[in-house]
Structure formats: structure tokens, C-alpha cells
């Protein structure tokens, strides 16, 4: 079986752990739990008749106090960069993290996720504007860990790009 390591990167409280919980266990909790260090989960996807096992490193949120451990990024075949649609500066952090990822892992596929689609009323981020940001290699994917919208699609899209790119 093909196994791939992917990382979930993003500012704190953007919903990285919730996305993984939604994907792996199909659950969502309103309760906020800060991830300390890293959480490991596994999800097997069926792509074009082949099983692909994604070993997901859910890294703790990035802020000025908690800096990303680069050693966690090593060996990643791709990453999901998660931003919060209600907090514009999380998009900036996601872009920064993408650069850090490229420093460590080279030009591996990365998907930008604008999470919390269930709160679009409060959104302060325009996905189309984000797409125009410098260096974006694909359209951002709008997701909601709460409703599950776009979650599986985001992981699948990343997996396809990883396998397609022969990383």
C-alpha cells in the first residue's frame, strides 16, 4: 500500500484538528482543544481503484509564542494550509507557513483551505482575492469542519496532486 505523510499547517484555532476529526472520525466538537506538539491520525482514501494511506501530522497552531517545529515537516509529501475565513491574518500566516514548508520539503503540493464556511456571515476574507496572492499554486478550497463541506474533497485533492506529481 502507498503511504504518504502530509501536514496540517495554520494559525492557532483555525480548525486544523477539527478538520482531521471530521475526516477521520466524522465528528465535530464545539469544544476547542489546543494541540500541543503534534497529533497523528491516519486516513485511507480510495483513488482510482488504489488505496492511499494518508498519515496526517496535525501540527500545533502557529503564533508568535509557538513556533513551528521544522523537523515535523521533514518527509512530508504535501500539506494542507488552513486559514480561518473570519480572521484575515490567518491567511497571511498560511502563506508564511507555505514558504517554510518549501524551505524544508521543496516544492511539494500544498492546498490552501479557508475553513469555517458555516460562518460565512462573519467572513472577512474573499477567496478570490486570496487566489490572487503571490505564489498561490491552486484555487483555495472552502471547507467547514462543522458541516463537513469540502473536507474530504480537500484531502482527496491534495492526495491526487501528490500522486500525480510523483512526489
Amino acid at each position, binding site marked *: *500500500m*502507498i*503511504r*504518504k*505523510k502530509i501536514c496540517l499547517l495554520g494559525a492557532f484555532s483555525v480548525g486544523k484538528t477539527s478538520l482531521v476529526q471530521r475526516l477521520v472520525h466524522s465528528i465535530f466538537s464545539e469544544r476547542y482543544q489546543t494541540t500541543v*506538539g*503534534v497529533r*497523528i*491520525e*491516519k486516513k485511507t482514501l480510495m483513488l482510482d481503484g488504489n488505496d*492511499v*494511506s494518508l*498519515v496526517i*501530522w496535525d501540527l500545533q497552531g502557529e503564533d508568535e509564542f509557538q513556533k513551528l*517545529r521544522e*523537523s*515535523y515537516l*521533514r*518527509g*512530508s*509529501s504535501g500539506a494542507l494550509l488552513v486559514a480561518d475565513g473570519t480572521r484575515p491574518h490567518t491567511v497571511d500566516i498560511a502563506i508564511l507557513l507555505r514558504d517554510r514548508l518549501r524551505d524544508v520539503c521543496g516544492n511539494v503540493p500544498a492546498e490552501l483551505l479557508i475553513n469555517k464556511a458555516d460562518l460565512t456571515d462573519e467572513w472577512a476574507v474573499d477567496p478570490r482575492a486570496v487566489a490572487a496572492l503571490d505564489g498561490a499554486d491552486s484555487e483555495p478550497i472552502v471547507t467547514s469542519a462543522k458541516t463537513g463541506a469540502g473536507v474530504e474533497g480537500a484531502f482527496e485533492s491534495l492526495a491526487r496532486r501528490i500522486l500525480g506529481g*510523483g*512526489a
Partner: protein
Amino acid sequence: MPRAAAEREIDELRRLLLQGERERIAALEERKLEVSSRDVSDVLPEAVLMRAADDEQLSRALAPTIEAGIETSARKNPQVLADAIFPVLGPAIRKAIQAALAAAVEGVNTALENSLSIQSLKWRWEARRSGRPFSEIVLVKNLVYRVEHVFLFHRETGLPLAQAVAPAVATQDADLVATMFTAISNWVRDSIHLVEDEEDSELQQITISGARVMIVRGPHAVLAGVVRGNPPTSVRLVMQRAIEAVHLERGEDLVRFDGDDTPFRATLPHLESCLQEQRRQRKRSPVFLAVMPVAIVVLALLGVWWGVQAHRRSQAWDAALEALRAAPGYQVFGVREEDSERVVSGLRDSFAAAPEDVLLPTGVDPDTVRFDFDTYESREFLERRVRERLAAPEGVGVDVEDGVVTVTGAAPTAWIDHADRIALGTAGVGRFDRSELVDSDFARMQGRVEALDGRVILFAAGSAAPTVGDRAELEGRLRDIDEAASSARRIVSVTIRGGARSDESPDGEGLGAERAAAVQRFVYDLRLESVVLQWLSGGGESTGRFETRLDVRILSSVMEAPAR
């Protein structure tokens, strides 16, 4: 020179120079396909070897064809395939069975050793106190160490490459475990910079209560072993050798690793070599070692004693049965066990000795035996039975021989009647001989009858009344006869003939009849039970004597006494 002529000459020159080569080329072109196949067959083995050494493309390309070929062969004629793999089938099955048996025996051994001992009770207490499963306590106490789980994972990505598990250990999700190891290692390395050299600051061991994870690293892969107990340093060396062997054999695959763990299945033997264990040697205490031989001897003696006792009991029982069979008046049919009790069934004569008395001398406790005997009359006790039943009076001799009962001597009639019934009513008696037995009542009666027979009663001349003396005597004699006849169960008849002298009565017959009637009345008035007046005659005999004569006769020897 014209152009056409020049070309002809050049053609001629070409023909002269290249004719041989042209023919060879034409010939070669004709044989093109044939040569190609032959050439391929020449180089094919070498080409296969070279390509197989380079990479696995050839194996992958051939795999579907070979699989399809095997499938076709199996479907067409399974026997061919069965014959081909037969030599490897046996060893493979034996190996699998041995492994399964070894695991089962190990479990049983441990369970037996620890099921019911003071030690196990202690451990059960410890398990209850600590809230850990008993099996875990047994394992920990029995093992010095055991490598339960070995993971090989890719150093950079933390993705698992292969894993090996000891028998009877639950498998873990290798993906998560291996990745967590990596994450923890990374965290340790990033967080705790104890040494400048990065290699030395790598996490080498994780210790948890009662278990540890030992980690050895190669340039591209990491080997982690989950160990229970206290492993010696040799375990780390074995793991080191294993990771080196993996790098030696699969170095290129490690460098090119893209998430596919297929090439690393071949590393399993190296991982399995790390699944080592050592069990605690149970030391027997000196007291135990000293007591053991004594205990064995005592047990052996007890066994011998028990065996001898059992043999004796068996012999005694045989003797008891034999004694019962031999005892007079017993017929033993069988012995059966009923509610752990022996039941002896058969027939027993009421004159036979009590079964308890028969068994007692043989040493068998009669209380342990139940007797189920029906009554019967055995020939052995015939004489005794006959004697007892006859209850012969004094003066009677009884002899029993070959079913013939002979009685001698003298006995009353009543007893003789009783003996007739008893003797012939007893099983085993064929004949009752009493020809030599005298009926004492009959003899007495006969004597008295004979004494009275012909008695003459005298009358005063002309008188029809007997004298007082005659009356008294006659009454006494008749009463004696009546008593004897009653005992002898006979009837005695008395005939009275009355007579008179001619000078007494002109018709002597009338007085004679009167006299006979007077005697008859007298006898009648005695109310005798066994004496009857048979005949009364008035006519005197022509003897010329004037008298009245009594003729007394016993009427029948078989007549029963009249009802009283």
C-alpha cells in the same frame, strides 16, 4: 562521354565491387525474423539476469503472465501443480504446526505453572491491588525480558516499512505507532539540546512502567523495539545488526522510498531476529530439593501399600464369593455394583448359615455388602428339614436317604397322618416309607377289642337285667375301647346276641331278645363316640348255653372317626 554511358559503367563497377555484399544483405533480409528469434534465445538468459540485477521491472512485467500461467495450469490439471509443490508443502505445514504448538504449549505451561501456587496467589493479590490483568503480572514476573514488537520505519517521513510481532501479542497500528515514534523523537531532538552533535542527541530509548521502546537508527531507517522487562545490551546489538542488514540489502529502496512498502517485506527475517526473550529460571529451594526425594519415596511406598491393599481386598472378595458358593444352602447368581455397594444375588436356604457369618472369616466386612437372596429348599438340608417338620415323637426313628424318608418305631395315629402329609409335601422327598412303623393307638385299640371280643354277660335266671358287676366291667372296657378307637381314628362295632335258657322261657328267644335289648340300651346310654352297635340278635345260638354274647369287631381300618 555521354551521361548514360558513364552511369552504366559506374553500375558495372558497383556490381563488380559489391556483388558479394549485396547477395549477403539480401539473404540476411530474407532470414530476418528467424535470425532475430534465435539471437534473442541466445541472449535471453543473460539479459534476464542483468535486468533482474538492475531493478524489479522484469519481475513486475512477468508477474501477471506467470500468475495467469499458474492459474491456467491449476484449472487444467491440478495434479501437476500439486506434484510440483508437494516437496515444499510438508515442511511448510510442519513448520506452521510447530510454531502453533509451541505457542500453545508455552501458554499452557505458564498457566499450569502459575495456576495454583502460593506464588500465583500473591500475584493475583498484586493484580487486584494494582488493577492490572493477572496475565500481565504473570508475564512480567516470568520474563526477564521479551521483545514483543519491532517496527521498521522510514527516518525522514516516519512512515512504517515493516513490523514483526511476537506470538500472542496484540498488533498495533504500525502507521500510528511508527509516526508517533518519529514525532516524539523529533520533539525530543528539537527540545532537548544536551549534546552539540545531533546524532548523539537522538532519542535512544523510551521507558514506560515495565516496558521500554529501544530505538536504533540507520541513515534512512529506524528500528524500534517494544521490550518488556530488562533486556541485556545484546538486544540492542541484535537490533543494530538488523538495521545494518536492512540498509545493506535495501539501501536504494530506502533512498527512493515514495510511500510504497512492498520492497521491505523482504526485511521481515531481520526484524524477527530481534524478537528475543529470556524467561526467569525458577530456582528450586534447598528445602524443596531435600524434601522432594523423601516425598517421592513416601508417595511410592504409599502407592505400593495401596496396591497391596487393593490386591488383598480383591483376593478377599474372591475368597468371600467362593465361600458363599461353597456354603451349603447357597446358590450365588451374580455380583453387581449399586451406589458404590456390592450386591450379591442368588438363592439361600432358610437352614443355611447367615451370609454375614459366611463372609466374616474371609476378611470382607459384611457391612459393605448387600445380600439379595430369594428363599429356596436345598437338598443339602433335606434331612434336617424333614426331621424338623415331622417333629417325630419319642420312639420314632427317621431316616432320610436319596429322597426316601423311612420311619420306624411306634407312633400315634395322629402323628402318622401328619407325617404322611408333611413327608410327601416336602421338596426332594420321593417316597415315604412307614412300613416298619407301628401305629401305637391302633395297637392299643386292637388289644382292647381282642380282650372284649367274645365276652359273655351273665344274667340271673329269668332276668333281663345285667348284674351290677358286669355292667361296671363292661362300661370300663367299652370306654377304654372308645378312647383307643378315637385316638386311632377307627370305628368299633359291637354286635350283641341275646340268649336264654330253654327252662327260663318257653320261648327262649323272647328273653334273649330282651336281654340283648337291655345290653344295647346300656351301651347306648354310655354315649360312646367311636363304638357303634352294629347288629342286635335275639336268637340264641344252638350251643345249648343260656347266655348273651358280645361280638366286638373293628369295622374298618380306614374309617374316619365320626365328627365330634
